[in-house]
Each structure stands twice: as C-alpha cells, then as structure tokens.
C-alpha cells in the first residue's frame, strides 16, 4: 500500500511539473501566479501521501501551514501588482 501512495505522490508531482512548464513561461504574470497556486495544491497532496506512506511525524502541521499560506503569493500579487501606482499624494486623507 505504501508503494502505491508513494507512486501516487510521484505521479502528482509529475503532473504538477508538466503544468509548471506550461505556466511558468507565461505569457502573462497571471499565468505565472497560477503556477504558485498549482504547486501549492499539488505539493500539499504529495506531502500528505508521503507522510501517510512513510509515517513521518508532525507532517500534518507542515501541510496545515502550507494550506494556510497557499493564497499568500496571489494576495501579494494583487495587492502590489497594480502597474506601478503612484503613492497616494495626500496620504493623511485616506482614512
């Protein structure tokens, strides 16, 4: 059974790798951000599978941490990704 789990983990990593080849190259930055998203999900899936197969302790916490941070790259992308916005001319007024 554990060989099956490991093989599955490998298969997922492989599909993720193929997907990465496609989207890291773009054309747009949005596509590239999808790469971060894809590896997030795929990475968590293979992490869980490897953990189940090898019985390593504490891996659940790592997966949980990755799951919490999964959307952070996209959030940063949207947050500061607007094309070079001018700093607020009158910052004191915006609150």
């Amino acid at each position, binding site marked *: *059974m554990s060989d*099956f*789990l490991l093989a*599955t983990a490998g*298969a*997922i990593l492989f*599909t*993720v790798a*193929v*997907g990465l080849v*496609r*989207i890291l190259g773009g*054309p*747009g*930055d*949005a*596509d590239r*951000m*999808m790469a971060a*998203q*894809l590896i*997030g*999900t*795929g990475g*968590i*899936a293979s992490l*869980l*599978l490897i953990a*189940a197969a090898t019985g390593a302790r504490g891996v*659940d916490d790592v*997966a*949980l941490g990755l*799951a*919490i941070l*999964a*959307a952070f790259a*996209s*959030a940063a*992308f*949207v947050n500061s*990704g*607007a*094309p070079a916005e001018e700093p607020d001319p009158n910052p004191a007024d915006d609150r």
Partner: protein
Amino acid sequence: MSLALDLFSIAAISAGVFFFLAGTVGLLRFPDALSRLHALTKADNLGLGLIVLGLLPRAESLLAALMLVAIWALVQLAGATAAQLIGRAVRRKGPAI
C-alpha cells in the same frame, strides 16, 4: 474490512490523481488565462479532495482525520480566493498581466 478500506483508498486516490492530470491537461490545452484558471481550480477542488478522502480511513486518530479535512477546507478557501484575485487581475488589466 481492511481490504475494503484499502480498495476504497486506492479508488479515491486514483480518482484524485486523475483530476490533477485533467487539470494539467487543461492548463496545457486551454487558450487563455481565464480558462486555464478554470482548469486549475478543478485540480484544487476535486484532486486534493479525493486524495484526502482516500487518506481518511488511514488516519491514526479522529484528530488526525479532522486535520486532513481542515487542510482540505483551507486549500479550498485559498484556491477560491486566489482564483478570484487572479481572475480579477486578468479582467481588469488584460491578459498581459
């Protein structure tokens, strides 16, 4: 009983891998960013979900099982949010972004 559970695990995990594969094929074949995003979220939702489902019977304790479900739920939340954010960025700024 254990054999049945193993079979269930194998079936669910295999199905999960299938969805990851399908998502990747979508990434490779779809013409524009928004539809690629669509393909990606399928892998997020179903791929990981089925794998978690398959791993549930193998969890050592109820707590570990709950943890697995929580991880899945968090990835759902993150995936949906990221898809929204990236989609909006594409819509607003055009596909070049």
